[in-house]
Structure formats: structure tokens, C-alpha cells
């Protein structure tokens, strides 16, 4: 097909979100049924800002007063799109009901010297990293609009006031709307310095405003990467070598070339083969029928037992050991202790299992490469496209699409983009949508890293904690993914929640403390998985503290509080939770409680879980009360949604989440052996949002850390048994 027939899909294709129905892509609700696979399923709308002048980089205003706010980070369910729009709107003084949003492209960001800053959407950083310049973007536009109105009336700007998208000249009462002065405003030079509002003046930030992206998610109109249809588009299904580090040896394409719809069978890089067909179903059928020979490579014999052994060795070794936090002399403290307690915990590999499997659509010709994909980092996606395309960066572009879940899988890794471009390169001029099957997604994740942890604590006669040695053994994410981030070989991310200070600081003051990491890197690709290393580190620390409290004969709340004199914000969230559940009073028939508190991603979070366990070991989590202090709470109702959602993700991991390794690959293949928590297991969740001001903490990840340890501690309270290996469901049933 000719390239120029695709022009409609170029700049016009930008995903927009709006409350007004009609934008975005879709059908007239089942009335329009295109009958051919090559028909355009929906018409791409123009980028709403197309042809309109911008007022500063972040704001474009249409003559009808519609306000277009640019969003650099990616929406993947966490609500960042709405939160970031709130930040701009707060300073812009615009009418919230007239807002729509758009994603600028990574290519434009590059061409304009990163005017929109980072596109990276991970580490719960969307808002906390960008709030200042995003708010400034709103304030700059407001000042330009005010100046344009003042110029129009020939009055001093100081006499004009902006509110709700209307500018009023106060002495005369004259008014003009933003849309009427937008063009004039766009011609002014943006002011260098603008004042940002004090938090106590905020009217949009801090309000439980409904999301901007809900409507299209209720009727099937929301387009995800999997749903994309371009004129003449082909579909690809892929299989990479199931063994980590293995390669593709050969395949017998003759066996499938005659199958319905099949267009081409292609080698993809060193390790994968893809079938390209008219529809994905046809491609996947042919792929299943394709005889493939793999070279399973050096890890063909690797299994979970070998990995466990490697990690167990690290628990007592002195090789490749890094110190993450140290205070006093732990050895002396432990030797002098009246009582010592020791325990070893184990955390497995886990898949992200985003609801929407990995996918990307690519169109390659010898002078242009375009990619449409769900990505947590458009700039990284662009880099992957450039590298795979063999074209210069100014010939490549990425169009971002809302994600059907990210959780870290679509941020640091764009293997799906690399593959899609690689395939498209072998079919120049044809757009190809690559979609992974769920089975492929399970087999080729970038898994939550595996670690084990031995903890030894010392108590004095009075039951006070005098020394604590934490020895983590296991995988470093940075060593594999971002070796530049290592500090003299040490991976600081491994110590999340154990740092002496900062966004992931330990919540307690322990006089003699040693936290170490024996780095052991099995050849299974690790990745950033919602919460990252706080998931296991919070279990290690919070469950072990419970063990220590028990050994000291102390109440777990009081034992914690006694170590938190220097952590007033952590203590505050813990106290609020304890008060809310009525800690110390009976919880109800057979119901028992457990606590956890953590500082991570800059926020202070605590939870109390209430559980019961029946005599067959069946767990019921009745309720979790959670408190979070993120400093500033931009949208409290979205924070509640994130807290509940993080609990589902974290508890699924605790109850069921494990990827085991056999013959060098992951054994689990789909949701039957990698289950997710369902409606009937979902506890009631009460979220307390208690922003104390003065800092910006994360939202999407912190609370995930407290669900699992709080539940584990409650299980101990209920059963008297400590379960120290994740996932727990089978152990509960067996105990």
C-alpha cells in the first residue's frame, strides 16, 4: 500500500480525552459495523490543539473557550491525567468544565528541547516531580491572557482579574473570555517569573474532582493499544524463546504459509519469531502451528531450586555484600542481648500481568518510522523505536495511547516496541500491530525480583530492641536494568524502606543497625514492579518487628511507637489507623488484627488489617484501614481508589503471586496458575487521607507496601503461626 494513504493517521492521530462525548475513537454504538478487516474502525480526531497557537507550552485555548491542557506523563489508571490537569487549572483560573487534555508526542518534546520535561511515569513521580513546572505552566498562561485583555482595553494588567475563564477589568466591570483573547495572548512573550499560589488558596488542587477520562471507559470507546486500527493494518503474533538467554534456531514457515490470512513469517531479533496475518487470531493460530526449533542456551537447566540455593548461600556469605544502612555496632549489641530472635523470609518472582497484554503498532518505511503504543515513558519508547528502526531520531515518532495497566512493565522496558518495529521493517509501508498473547506475557516479563532475607534482632532485659541485622540476599534490579545507577556496585533501590533518610527511609530508630545486601543475580530478567522492593522489604521489616514485639511480650503497636520518637509523621499515620480500628479492643468473633507502617516514595503510610482464618486454613480479610500522608493530596477520591487498587495488587501477590522457574523459563502461563484476587476476596477498605503539607509524596505505590505485612501480622494474631514465604495460600491451607 502507498504510504500517503496513511496521512490521516499521522498528526491527526493523537489520543485525546474529554468529557464531551464524541472525541476519541469509536462507533456510533453498534450501528456502524465495518465489514472488512482493513476498514478504518473509527475516524481519528484531529489533535484538539492542531492549528491553534499555544499560550506557553502547556495550554491551548480554543475560540469557544475549550481549554486544552497538555499532559506529559501517561495515564494508566492511576489518575495522573486528572491530577496534572488540576495543577495547571489551579493556576490558570479556568473553567474546569471546559477542560480537555492531550498528550504531546515524545518527538515534539525532543525537537523542543524537552519543553514538557520528563515523560517517565513511574516511581509514583508523575505529580511530585513535575508539580512546580506544571503549575507554573498554568500561571504563565494566565498572566499572558491577563496581559492580552489589558492590552485590548488599554488598561494596566493589575486592574484585571481572571476567574473561571473570564477576565474582568475591575474598575469598569468589562469582561472578556479566555477564548476571545487567546490568540492575542499567544503572541506575547511568556513571563519568566510568576508567583504560584499558596496551598491555602487552592480551589481545585485538593478537591475530590471526578476523573476526566471516565466516559469513554464506560462504553467501549476508549481505545487501547490493542484496539488500534489503521488503514491496511496487519496483525502479528509472536513467540520468543521460552528459555531466558535462549535463541531462535529455525522455523518451518512452509507449514503455515497456506493457512488463512497468513502474510509472512519473520524472524524477530535473535530470539523470536512472529507470524503476520490479516487478523491477530489468524496470526496466533498459525504461530501455534509453526514448527520452531530453539537453542535453549546456557540457562536450559535453570530451576527455582537452583535459584533458591544461590540466594540461601548469600544469607551468610561475605562475597558481593553491600551495606545500605549502618548505625552503632550491631554485632556487639546482638552478643550482649538478653534475647535474640532470628527469622528468614522469602519473596518470589512475580509477573506484572497488566490486564492489557504487551502490544505496539509500528509503521516503517525507509524514511520514517512511527509507533503507536501504551507506554509509561514515551521518550524511552521513542528511543527503542529509533534503535530498532535504523533511522535518525528526527525520522521517528511515537504516539502514546492510554495504558490498560502499567505497574512498571511498560516504563523501563520497550521490548514490545523493539519487536514491533523489527517486524514492521520487514513489511515496509504496512502498519503492523503486534499483540502478545497472555501466555507470551507470562513467559517474557521483567519480573518482580526474588530476594530472601535473614533478620536477627536483639532485645535487652526490658524487651527493648537494641540491635537489628538485616541481610537481604538476591536480585538487584539496577544491576541488570540500569547499571549506571549502581553506586560502587551497590544497588540503593534494594534497600528501599531501609535507608537512613530520604523518600524510602526506615520508620524506626534502632541504636545498632546493619542492613546488607548480598547481590545474587539469577539470569531471570528483573524489573520495577509497582512498589518495587518495598513489597518484600516491608514484609521483612514489619513482620519481623511483630516477631520481636511478641518475643518481648509487648503490644505490637506500643513496641513500634517506642522506636518512632524521631519519626513523628510515621507515628501519626500509625496512630490514626490504630485509633480508627480501635486497637486494643476486641475486633469481633474470630477476627484478629495486624499492623504495618512504612515510609516510601516520599509518603507516610500505615495499615491495620482485620482477618479471620477458619480451621481449614481459609483466610478472610474483613477490613483494612489505611492512612496516608502524601504531604499534598491533589485529589483525595483518586487517592482512595489508588489505595484500594494497590491493596488488590499487593494482596494478589501475597496470596497467589509466584513465578517459578523450570527448564530456564517461567512455568506459569495464564491466570489459572498466576491468579489475581477477585471480588469475593476483596476486603472492605477505609482510607484516611491526611496530608500534612509542606512536601509532595507519591500515591500510586506507597500503600501497596503495608497491605501484605498487615495481613501477615493479623494471620499470626489469628493462628499463632508465622508464614515467612510468599505466596501464602497453600501454606495456610497446609498448616
Amino acid at each position: 500500500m502507498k504510504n500517503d494513504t496513511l496521512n490521516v493517521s499521522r498528526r491527526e492521530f493523537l489520543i485525546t480525552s474529554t468529557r464531551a462525548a464524541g472525541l476519541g475513537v469509536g462507533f456510533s454504538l453498534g450501528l456502524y459495523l465495518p465489514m472488512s478487516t482493513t476498514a478504518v474502525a473509527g475516524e481519528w480526531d484531529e489533535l484538539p490543539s492542531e492549528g491553534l497557537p499555544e499560550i506557553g507550552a502547556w495550554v491551548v485555548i480554543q475560540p469557544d473557550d475549550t481549554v486544552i491542557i497538555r499532559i506529559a506523563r501517561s495515564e494508566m489508571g492511576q489518575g495522573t491525567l486528572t491530577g496534572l490537569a488540576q495543577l495547571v487549572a489551579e493556576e490558570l483560573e479556568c473553567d474546569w468544565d471546559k477542560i480537555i487534555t492531550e498528550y504531546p508526542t515524545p518527538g515534539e518534546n525532543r525537537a523542543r528541547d524537552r519543553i514538557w520535561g520528563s515523560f517517565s511515569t513511574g516511581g509514583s513521580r508523575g505529580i511530585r516531580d513535575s508539580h512546580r513546572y506544571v503549575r507554573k505552566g498554568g500561571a504563565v498562561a494566565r498572566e499572558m491572557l491577563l496581559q492580552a485583555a489589558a492590552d485590548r482595553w488599554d488598561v494596566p494588567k493589575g486592574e484585571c482579574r481572571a476567574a473561571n475563564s473570564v477576565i474582568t477589568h475591575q474598575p469598569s466591570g468589562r469582561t472578556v473570555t479566555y477564548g476571545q483573547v487567546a490568540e492575542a495572548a499567544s503572541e506575547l512573550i511568556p513571563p519568566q517569573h510568576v508567583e504560584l499560589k499558596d496551598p491555602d488558596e487552592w480551589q481545585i488542587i485538593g478537591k475530590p474532582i471526578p476523573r476526566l477520562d471516565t466516559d469513554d471507559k464506560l462504553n467501549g470507546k476508549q481505545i487501547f493499544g490493542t484496539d488500534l486500527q489503521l488503514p491496511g493494518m496487519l496483525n502479528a503474533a509472536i513467540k520468543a524463546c521460552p528459555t531466558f538467554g535462549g535463541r531462535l534456531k529455525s522455523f518451518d514457515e512452509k507449514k503455515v504459509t497456506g493457512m488463512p490470512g497468513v502474510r509472512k513469517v519473520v524472524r524477530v531479533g535473535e530470539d523470536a519469531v512472529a507470524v503476520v496475518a490479516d487478523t491477530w487470531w489468524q496470526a496466533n493460530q498459525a504461530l501455534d502451528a509453526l514448527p520452531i526449533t530453539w537453542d535453549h542456551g546456557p540457562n536450559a537447566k535453570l530451576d527455582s531450586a537452583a535459584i533458591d540455593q544461590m540466594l540461601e548461600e548469600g544469607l551468610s556469605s561475605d562475597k558481593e555484600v553491600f551495606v545500605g544502612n549502618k548505625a552503632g555496632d550491631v554485632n556487639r549489641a546482638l552478643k550482649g542481648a538478653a534475647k535474640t530472635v532470628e527469622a528468614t523470609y522469602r519473596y518470589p518472582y512475580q509477573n506484572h500481568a497488566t490486564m492489557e497484554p504487551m502490544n505496539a503498532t509500528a509503521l516503517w518505511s525507509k524514511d520514517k518510522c512511527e509507533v503507536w503504543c501504551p507506554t509509561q515513558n514515551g521518550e524511552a519508547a521513542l528511543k527503542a523505536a529509533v534503535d530498532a528502526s535504523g533511522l535518525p531520531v528526527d525520522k521517528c515518532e511515537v504516539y502514546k495511547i492510554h495504558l490498560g495497566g502499567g505497574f512498571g512493565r511498560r516504563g523501563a522496558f520497550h521490548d514490545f516496541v523493539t519487536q514491533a518495529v523489527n517486524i514492521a521493517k520487514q513489511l515496509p509501508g504496512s502498519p503492523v500491530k503486534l499483540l502478545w498473547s497472555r501466555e507470551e506475557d507470562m513467559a517474557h516479563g521483567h519480573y518482580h525480583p526474588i530476594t530472601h532475607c535473614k533478620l536477627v534482632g536483639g532485645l535487652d532485659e526490658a524487651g527493648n530492641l537494641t540491635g537489628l541485622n538485616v541481610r537481604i540476599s538476591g536480585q538487584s534490579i539496577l544491576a541488570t536494568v540500569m547499571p549506571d545507577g549502581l553506586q560502587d556496585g551497590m544497588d540503593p533501590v534494594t534497600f528501599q524502606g531501609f535507608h537512613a533518610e530520604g523518600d524510602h527511609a526506615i520508620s524506626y530508630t534502632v541504636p545498632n543497625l546493619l542492613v546488607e545486601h548480598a547481590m545474587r543475580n539469577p539470569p531471570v530478567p528483573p524489573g520495577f514492579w509497582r512498589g518495587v522492593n518495598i513489597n518484600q522489604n516491608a514484609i521483612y521489616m514489619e513482620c519481623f518487628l511483630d516477631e520481636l514485639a511478641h518475643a518481648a511480650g509487648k503490644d505490637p503497636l506500643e513496641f513500634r511507637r517506642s522506636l518512632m520518637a524521631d519519626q513523628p509523621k510515621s507515628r501519626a499515620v500509625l496512630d490514626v489507623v490504630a485509633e480508627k480500628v480501635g486497637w486494643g479492643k476486641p475486633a469481633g468473633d474470630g477476627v484478629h488484627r495486624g499492623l504495618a507502617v512504612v515510609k516510601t516514595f516520599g509518603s507516610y503510610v500505615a495499615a491495620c488489617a482485620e482477618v479471620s482464618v477458619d480451621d481449614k486454613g481459609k483466610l478472610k480479610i474483613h477490613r483494612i484501614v489505611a492512612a496516608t500522608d502524601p504531604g499534598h493530596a491533589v485529589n483525595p477520591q483518586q487517592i482512595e481508589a489508588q489505595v484500594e487498587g494497590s491493596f488488590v495488587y499487593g494482596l494478589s501477590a501475597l496470596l497467589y503471586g509466584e513465578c517459578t522457574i523450570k527448564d530456564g523459563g517461567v512455568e506459569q502461563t495464564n491466570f489459572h496458575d498466576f491468579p489475581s484476587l477477585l471480588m469475593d476476596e476483596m476486603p472492605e477498605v477505609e482510607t484516611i487521607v491526611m496530608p500534612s503539607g509542606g512536601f509532595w509524596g507519591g500515591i500510586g505505590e506507597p500503600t501497596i507496601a503495608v497491605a501484605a505485612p498487615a495481613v501477615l501480622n493479623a494471620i499470626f494474631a489469628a493462628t499463632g503461626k508465622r508464614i515467612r514465604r510468599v505466596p501464602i495460600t497453600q501454606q495456610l491451607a497446609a498448616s
Partner: protein
Amino acid sequence: MATLNINGETVEVEVDGSTPLLWVLREQLGLTGTKYACGIGLCGSCTVHVDGEAVRSCTVPVSSMDADKKIVTIEGLSADNSHPLQQAWKELDVPQCGYCQPGMIMAAAALLNKNPEPDDEAINQQITNICRCGTFNRVRRGIHLAVDINKRGRS
């Protein structure tokens, strides 16, 4: 060739009979609101109605359908987000990423068809869709709210 009744329209599709209904909807008919996530009946993302019953369309070969079986997809649930569940979902901001939500809403709609006032236990039994974003508590509240909206509409 398959003849199907989808969202009130009769359509003919040139397709291999073994193709799951899910892929016919998505790829032949362009009704991409119905999602693929597991392909083996485990997650419910592909839920549609067949004669009012919730069906996981990834497990149904299109050859088992005919013109008399009324298929409704998320696109056919209402013309304008006016179904009580859509209203309730909107009011409570239920979706996060939204990928599972068409299936979730169709499962809930089928539940309400059969049981206009489900209690929590009925919801637990009938809504077995996976949502990795974890919207369950709002889904539950949304179903209860839709019942109220329904009643208000009738009174």
C-alpha cells in the same frame, strides 16, 4: 460465513467457524470495546451478552452462534452512557485503567437482568472478573447504586 445478531443488527461475517466470537467482534466487526486479556475464559474482559446471559466471548466459537441469538456488546448497552450501571460507574468514578471495565459492566448488567437487587453475596458469586487495577469495591458500590438509580427511574 456466519450470520449474527449484534446490538440489534443482523450482520454477516466471512470467517472461519472456529474463530472465537471475541475475535470476530474485535477484528471482523471492529467492536473493540470487548477486550482480550486471557483468551481462556479466566478473566471476563471479553464478557458480552448472548440472549441476556453473560458469556465470555473468547471461549465461544462463532459457529455456535446464529441469527436468533441476540448478542449485545458494551457498544450496544446504551446509546449514551445512560444505562444505570454506566450512570453509577460515572458517579463513583469506578474505572482506573478501564481495560477490564467493559467486561465488568457487561457482567454486572447480566447479573441485574436476572437479579434486580443483588446482595453482596450474589455480587461475590456472579462477578468473577479480574481487575488488576483493583476496582472491586467501587464496582460493588456501583452495582448497588445502579439498583437505586433503577428504582428512582421507575418511581
